[in-house]
């Protein structure tokens, strides 16, 4: 045990270097800064938008337009004069756009003739926040149309406009497993996505980083011949294997935690704060009805599945790293592992796994990393057999690869593999 701790301490010291920690911290700070910046910009865009209005009609109807805009949370600002001059002023004032109510607007409206309002959108950027500004004009016109049509219906027929505009109402029922809730599927999907998006990202990051670090650790020991010294020491070689795996695992977890902290800030910024407020009573009711909140035992199962996936990756990386002649070759030798992680990651992210052809499903399920990616959705759906089956399968795969890795290190294969693919002495 003492020798294991000595080896583990050395592995962590070798991995946690300033050259590794400084870029990690810088990346996190950059993520957080971008997140904050984007978040502030998004918030600004979500605040009441100022819209310049040029009213060439000057009638009751045109005045109503301004009132309707105000009611829809816009801040109309009246302008007058030649439209070209107003556009120039708007550009100078960095306005997103302006509305021109033409002469004869009310007359045409009353006579039920086609009526139009000129909308000038000033595009200055093609970024996400830029597109939000562009959408402002469309939303403003939608608000005006709704208000006018509601007013016309109310005045002419003296009934609730909703009865004409949406005579058929929709009552959503969402069913998950044997549970049902009166909520809309989009809201439920958004909630599940907000709760589970990070799981595959964490897993993806940890697996890739741990595998890479471990493979580099093995390859560099071979390249620097420090491995030869270790192998000639009176130490059980299985301890060397375990120390490398545990060391890479610990450091990868640390790195993933730091990345996720920064990434969460960044994502919150992009979505303008929490994408979905859990405090909304309707959502809370749906979550309770559908059993969508993971319980402590469910989280434990999810953690176990993630842990088993990481163990598999470490065992495979240990073997692949043994094939590398030098650190430069590591990327090439761990490519098969990357592919094995990426395939289930993207499949689970973009496709409905259960709708895939059976043969493809079985192939994907044979990849050990597919199971932790599928664990969270399966827990929500109550497919415990799938989750447990995946965990057991992953542990079997881990045992097989650890056995192969230990075999490599306890024989001289660890040295001769390189000799076979590298240059002979």
């Amino acid at each position, binding site marked *: 045990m*003492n020798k294991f701790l000595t080896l583990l301490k050395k592995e962590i*010291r070798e991995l946690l270097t300033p050259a590794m920690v400084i870029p990690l911290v810088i990346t996190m700070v950059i993520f957080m800064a971008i997140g904050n910046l984007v978040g502030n910009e998004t918030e600004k865009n979500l605040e009441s938008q100022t819209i310049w209005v040029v009213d060439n009609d000057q009638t009751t109807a045109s005045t109503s337009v301004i009132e309707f805009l105000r009611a829809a949370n816009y801040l109309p600002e009246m302008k007058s004069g030649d439209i070209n001059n107003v556009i120039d002023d708007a550009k100078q004032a960095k306005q997103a756009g302006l509305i021109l109510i033409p002469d004869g607007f009310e007359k045409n409206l009353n006579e039920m003739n086609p009526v139009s309002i000129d909308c000038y959108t000033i595009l200055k950027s093609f970024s996400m926040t830029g597109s939000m500004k562009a959408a402002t004009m469309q939303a403003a016109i939608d608000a005006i149309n709704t208000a006018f049509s509601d007013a016309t219906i109310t005045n002419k027929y003296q009934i609730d406009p909703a009865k004409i505009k949406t005579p058929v109402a929709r009552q959503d029922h969402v069913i998950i497993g044997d549970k049902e809730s009166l909520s809309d599927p989009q809201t439920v999907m958004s909630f599940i996505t907000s709760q589970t998006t990070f799981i595959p990202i964490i897993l993806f990051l940890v697996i890739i980083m741990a595998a890479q670090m471990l493979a580099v650790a093995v390859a560099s020991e071979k390249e*620097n011949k420090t491995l*030869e010294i*270790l192998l*000639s020491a009176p*130490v059980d070689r299985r301890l060397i294997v375990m120390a490398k795996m545990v060391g890479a695992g610990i450091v990868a977890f640390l790195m993933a935690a730091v990345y996720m902290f920064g990434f969460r800030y960044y994502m919150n910024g992009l979505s303008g704060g929490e994408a979905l407020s859990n405090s909304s009573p309707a959502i809370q009711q749906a979550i309770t009805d559908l059993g969508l909140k993971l319980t402590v035992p469910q989280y434990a199962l999810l953690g176990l599945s993630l842990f088993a996936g990481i163990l598999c990756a470490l065992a495979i990386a240990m073997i692949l790293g043994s094939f590398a002649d030098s650190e430069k070759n590591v990327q090439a030798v761990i490519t098969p592992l990357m592919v094995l992680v990426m395939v289930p990651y993207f499949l689970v992210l973009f496709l409905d796994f259960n709708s895939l052809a059976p043969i493809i499903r079985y192939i994907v399920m044979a990849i050990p990393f597919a199971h932790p990616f599928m664990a969270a959705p399966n827990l929500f759906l109550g497919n415990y057999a799938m989750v447990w089956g995946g965990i057991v399968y992953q542990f079997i795969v881990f045992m097989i690869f650890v056995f192969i890795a230990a075999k490599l290190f306890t024989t001289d294969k660890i040295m001769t593999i390189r000799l076979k693919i590298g240059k002979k002495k």
Partner: protein
Amino acid sequence: MKNYALKVVNLRKKYGRFEAVRGVSFNVEPGEIFGLIGPNGAGKSTALKCIATILSPSDGKIEVFGKDATKDANSVRSMISYLPEEAGAYKNLTGIHYLQFMAELFVAKNEIKACVERGEKIADLGSKIKNKINTYSKGMTRKLLLARTVMIKPKLAILDEPTSGLDVINALSIRKTVRELAKNGMAVLLSSHNMLEIEYLSDKVGILHNGRIIETGTANELKNKHRAKNLEEVFAKITE
């Protein structure tokens, strides 16, 4: 029966179809420095790796103080210490941390402190022992590695090209250390393609060529036998 520090009998090692070592036999006595010389690719490093229990022999027998290196590798590992050719050290550790790490692996808990102090003295790096290894020159690293190899007081030190690539001053310092250690009873097996170095250091010499030992004896014996001025001439005459 003589008690050898190292007894190698008909050692063979194949990499696939290529046979790097082809039936090598020699003995090393306690306190003796045995030098294996030969050109690059002669099989010196492969033979040393087999003796250091890193590679498994394809055939033959290796015994260290009577223990079989294949069947009882762990016992052999507790008696030997191996310095690979052009080996590096863990660059993010300091020199002292490196010695501490190695001492923890090789010696009992109550001997660690004394072992590290011995290593520090042999390395002779002064205050730079507390610097990170990535700041060391090649000579400093080699001195640290040699100190690591011998600080644990192995019964048999296996040194592969101990002065390879070093300047004269560092090479002299390492040779002096090896000589002193042998005087204190440590058996040393070293390899080099620098035949003059082996002539200066070794009590006994084995000339390795194409995976076979073609001559064994003291440097003087070999020079007299082949009427040569030095071991380089001996080697040239034998392989002509």
